[in-house]
């Protein structure tokens, strides 16, 4: 089988410059556009690229490689998902070339070279199951650890997460001291910053706990609960992990519940005080559905006009009468822009009066 090799830059491919080269077999010369394109980048991006160990935009080659020279990290953990790809690949072929980087060998032309799959592990595993022996790959001859991590994250964060590999990549980025902020990382990956922050919390778990996660012994749900534990509790579990204890979901949940209960202790004291001062929850004496003060005020109204009831002397003008009058007044106000303020003020006053009306009446007894 002939080896198809193509070398281009991602930027050049965006401009369609390589459409003709797609038809060629054998080596093609790279476009001399790298320096011009680098200089066109804004300074912030250039600084970020330097921190990622990128001196110039990445170059790669597209090749058909034998599957048996590809290492798939974490292959054992993806049996079921690889099976899904197997069927799909048998039907439609491998639609997207996986990304691989030279792992061992004298160069990508070395016939004994071994490559590590950076992105597209399930595709490769699925292709293997589907019986393919050669697959088209995008080949990088070298990638800094940080850049490899960024590619894994870019690949995974846009799809359902292969969360352990994604986390490993993020830990590598963090440990590599690239010094990206969460906003910069989110922008680089093209994902919401909230997602990056959640992942970063996982990446900052103590190393023994991360070890358990990378070994596939901790589910994603339990890992997210670990993040919610205090540093002290995390350190405690890390020491257990170091002693060889299993960090089970039940253990983590138990510690988390205890932590929350401890945090709610001040609330317990307050509620305990309340029990010592019993509340006065007495059902409304009507025995029917308790009317809101608003309804009861309206029920008192009766007449359609908003004038005061002529038989009520001014000195005996009660709260409920005032409330009735205001409610009637509010309903009668025309709905114009000019009356908006008056309506708002009237409503506000009605609500304040309703609150007053609900307050327990102060009775005096005379003997």
């Amino acid at each position, binding site marked *: 089988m002939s080896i198809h090799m193509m070398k281009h830059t991602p930027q050049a491919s965006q401009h369609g410059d390589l459409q003709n080269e797609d038809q060629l077999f054998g080596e093609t010369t790279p476009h001399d556009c790298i320096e011009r394109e680098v200089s066109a980048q804004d300074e912030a991006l250039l600084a970020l690229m330097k921190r990622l160990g990128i001196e110039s935009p990445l170059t790669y080659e597209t090749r058909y490689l034998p599957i048996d020279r590809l290492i798939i990290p974490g292959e054992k953990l993806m049996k079921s998902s690889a099976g899904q790809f197997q069927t799909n690949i048998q039907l439609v072929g491998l639609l997207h070339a996986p990304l691989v980087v030279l792992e061992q060998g004298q160069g990508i032309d070395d016939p004994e070279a071994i490559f590590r799959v950076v992105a597209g592990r399930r595709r490769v595993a699925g292709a293997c199951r589907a019986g393919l022996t050669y697959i088209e790959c995008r080949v990088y001859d070298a990638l800094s650890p940080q850049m490899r991590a960024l590619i894994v994250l870019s690949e995974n964060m846009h799809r359902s997460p292969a969360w352990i590999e994604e986390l490993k990549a993020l830990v590598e980025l963090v440990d590599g001291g690239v010094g990206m902020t969460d906003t910069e990382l989110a922008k680089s990956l093209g994902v919401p910053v909230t997602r990056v922050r959640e992942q970063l919390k996982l990446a900052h778990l103590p190393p023994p706990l991360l070890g358990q996660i990378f070994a596939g012994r901790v589910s994603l749900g339990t890992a997210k609960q670990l993040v*919610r*534990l*205090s540093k002290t509790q995390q350190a405690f579990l890390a020491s257990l992990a170091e002693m060889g204890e299993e960090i089970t979901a039940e253990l983590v949940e138990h510690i*988390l519940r205890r*932590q*929350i*209960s*401890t*945090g*709610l202790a*001040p*609330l*317990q004291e*307050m*509620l*305990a005080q*309340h*029990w010592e001062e019993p*509340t*006065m*929850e*007495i*059902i*409304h*004496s*009507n*025995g*029917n*559905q*308790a009317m*809101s*003060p*608003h309804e009861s005020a309206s029920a008192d109204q009766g007449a359609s006009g908003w004038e005061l009831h002529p038989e009520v002397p001014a000195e005996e003008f009660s709260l409920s009468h005032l409330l009735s009058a205001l409610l009637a007044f509010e309903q009668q106000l025309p709905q114009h822009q000019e009356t908006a*303020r008056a309506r*708002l*003020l009237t*409503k*506000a006053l009605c*609500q*304040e009066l*309703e*609150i007053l*009306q*609900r*307050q*327990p009446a102060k009775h005096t007894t005379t003997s």
Partner: protein
Amino acid sequence: MMIDFPKADPVERGCGEREQGGVYAETGLSPYGTPLEFFLIDPPRPLPEGLDLINKPQLWEDPATGITHLLIWIGSEHYQWCSDYIEETRRFGASRRINPNLELSRLTRESRMILAHPRAINTLWQEQSPPQECQKHLPRHDAASLAFLNSDSSQKVGPCLFKLWDVLPQETATEVLELEGESPICLRKVGSTIYQYRPTGESAEGLQPGLFAALPITGFALIQYDDGSVNESAKAKLQQAGLNFYETDR
């Protein structure tokens, strides 16, 4: 015989109208009930580390009493300020939608709705003036108490929940009433609630999440679908637990 119990007003709230099929925990109003301030948590308490309440109402069993309470987050997308929710509850009672798949049978008549808000705790209280009045009348919380005790403001304690009204920005008002020689009165409208506040101009930047109320659950409202039916599994759980509930179209 149908047992009566206080119910919340089915008005439009800050979070909108109640939805068909929903299950709502309520704190109803009664002219013979206890003032709302009794159930407010002052000073508001910080959320325990690790508690994830946002969009996830949860049950919590108080180990001291064995009573299970409901922990609920009041989001700022509908109630921008903690005072918005308190003022709505003062007028219309409380009504919070809960997940009907919760173990409602663990709740009892002593259960409380314990509410959290992202802007309940004022962390800048020490550099600000005390509120004019703490409505729970806690010593040294407010200017009135400090004056009564012949103490100066450096001896105040806090944070006081009732300072939250003072730090509301004037810009957040629906209507501002300018008064000659006095600070303006602001009216703020949230849902059906209109309440007043008088901004002091002090910063609201220090507001942090906290627990601000522990309201008694007087009953549950089951909102009917168009055909009059309700969430039957929730109804069965409430019946089994012996809790008050009623069915309503809104």
